[in-house]
């Protein structure tokens, strides 16, 4: 952990939140559950500024993950809009949304979601592999490998480059997931219950990583959690209850 934090310190940049980067307005989302329709999100509007660390707190089933998916262009709302840097994501083509997910957004999930066939280095480079053609990637392979190795080193994972996810602990897998999310230097990092599957100590280490990313690299982070203590690490806490935004702390 000491290696990880010292590595992060090397590239510390501090600035204050200012420009609006992400905005949701009147978001509504429902899911069909058999014959009934469950209204998961009800008129949710949020403004996120660049460099801001926001936590969306709520109980299980409150709609917080759904909100994160809508904000991260992983899903489409029934009503309402999601704007990224002033552009309505809903009006973009599927390929344009894929492009935003590839270059502008990074995702960290509760269950890590690493590809089991790829090793740590390959998992980290996944976004770059997707962005570039075979020839483009091959001609820059060394640069990508070095960059991925640097990011992994900053997260204390440089000794596990050739390991497969199945050979890693939960905390290590989550660090690889974070490295993958950071590989393409995303404008916004979405973290969905990133410590939900980890023990308290490892979860705290992961939160420290996120906190330092925000503080030292001015990374915009949107964190979804059911844990009030973790949520308080953020600049701003939004509480979601039964699909309705309750208050802003």
């Amino acid at each position: 952990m000491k290696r990880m934090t010292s590595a992060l310190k090397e590239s510390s940049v501090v600035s204050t939140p200012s420009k609006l980067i992400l905005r949701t307005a009147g978001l509504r989302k429902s899911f069909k559950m058999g014959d009934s329709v469950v209204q998961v999100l009800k008129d949710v509007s949020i403004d996120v500024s660049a460099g801001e660390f926001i936590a969306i707190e709520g109980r299980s089933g409150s709609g917080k993950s759904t909100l994160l998916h809508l904000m991260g262009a992983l899903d489409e709302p029934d009503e309402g809009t999601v704007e990224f840097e002033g552009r309505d994501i809903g009006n973009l083509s599927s390929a344009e949304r894929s492009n935003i997910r590839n270059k502008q957004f990074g995702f960290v999930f509760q269950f890590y979601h690493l590809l089991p066939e790829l090793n740590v280095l390959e998992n980290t480079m996944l976004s770059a592999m997707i962005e570039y053609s075979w020839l483009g990637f091959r001609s820059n392979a060394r640069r990508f490998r070095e960059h991925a190795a640097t990011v992994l080193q900053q997260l204390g994972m440089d000794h596990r480059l050739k390991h497969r996810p199945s050979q890693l602990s939960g905390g290590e897998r989550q660090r690889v997931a974070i490295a993958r999310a950071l590989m393409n230097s995303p404008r916004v990092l979405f973290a969905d219950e990133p410590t939900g599957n980890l023990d308290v100590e490892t979860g705290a280490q992961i939160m420290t990583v996120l906190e330092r990313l925000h503080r030292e690299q001015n990374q915009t982070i949107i964190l979804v959690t059911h844990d009030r203590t973790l949520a308080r690490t953020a600049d701003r806490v939004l509480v979601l209850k039964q699909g309705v935004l309750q208050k802003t702390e």
Partner: protein
Amino acid sequence: MYKLHLILKYLRKRRIAWVSLIAVMLCTAMVLVVISVMGGWLRMFRESFHGLSGDVVVSRRSLAGFAHYEKMLEEIRKLPGVQAAAPTLRTFGLINIKNVIREGVQVVGLPIEQIGGINDFPRSMYRYYGSKVEAEQNATGVKELSERKKDELYTKLPPPTFDLVPDVPYELILPKANNVRNWPGMIVGAGVVGIGKDKNGNVDRPTGLYEAWAKLTVMGVSEDASTVDLSNKAERNYWIVDDSKTNVWQYDGNTVYVPFDTLQKDLGMEAFGDSPARTNDIQIKLKPGVDLNDAAQRIQVVVDRVLKDADAHMGIAVEARTWEDTQRVYLDAIENEKSLVTFLFSLISIVAIFLIFCIFYMIVVEKTKDIGIIKSCGATSLGVAQIFLGYGLAIGIVGGGLGLLVGFLIVHNINELHTWMGKVLGIVIWKPEVYAFDKIPNTMNPKEVAVIVGVAVVSSVLGALVPAIRAARLQPVEALRFE
């Protein structure tokens, strides 16, 4: 980049895909073997039948034959596109070889010195040609001479004859018989004298074969006879001077070849008084590139004119047919069999496509979460579809390639495999008397190979198509939530 990377990773790591790969491999190999054997069988039939016949055959559906053939030959040889023409006789007879073999045979009368210009019959003769090839192989230490070398050897040989074998003491073999050196020579089909292969696959030729006498009894059929006159038989002694292995079982098993003039005389078909000489067939060799059907039509015109000029055309149907038409019954049957077998095996291949579809569908279901992950990292729907289509393509290429290898090995060693199966398992599938050839065809047609491997690759992609579309349509969040 990620598509190729993932395809290669999945190909190496997902063992379930190996089942598809093996299915493609087995189907490709199976169809290749079947098509090659059936196609080879058909090709051998065509080559063998053609090798024993002229390009066009003038014949009449009667053992009585037809007259004025000499005039026809004269006219036919003048036709443009005709390279050579010769008459042949065919009938049936009883043979007695050294009082050991007594059976009914098909008797063919050949002007042997001319026949090499018409077809490849001389190449079927062991003493005339086969023994020379063997001697050359032994001298050079080559296991099998190339076709080019064999052609060179064949063209250097003088025309074959029915002459007696030099250095054989015929008088000592039959001291009581008269004029034994005046007996004509006879070529026997390999099967007639029991030439076969021993347990080790070597040709087993009876010792003293070329010192054996044979008595042949034939009976002439006259044009105007309403009943068969049994007193009109002709018996003649021959010396066996060679044996013939055409590889067509119905010829090799029961045919003997004798000089044309001798047989014509014995059948009462030679000219005497006002009656002109008769023959059963005229075999015609065409120059390379001449259209068979067109030539047959032109020859038919000549035949009809000759018969009309001789005032012998009434009630006699002498036909000029291409060699394919004369063997149509056999060739059509084999072609139909090949089509039927190809159709049946295509049905089996559809099962393989369905298997690939099922396996890919399972892989897509199993990989649903991965699809969500790569989509969350920015992969497009098209990219995801391309992964699975590429995966199918890779399985098709690798499976088809391995199938080609396995098929090639089986086809090229099919006779050895068959011998081994016979020895070890007691299973003999290929019976020469049923299939007309003593060896299973073991050559592959490059065109057929290309089509079969191509179909295997396309089938694999088709099998992966629906699962690929399903994968592409998955929303990232649906895929990530998948349990």
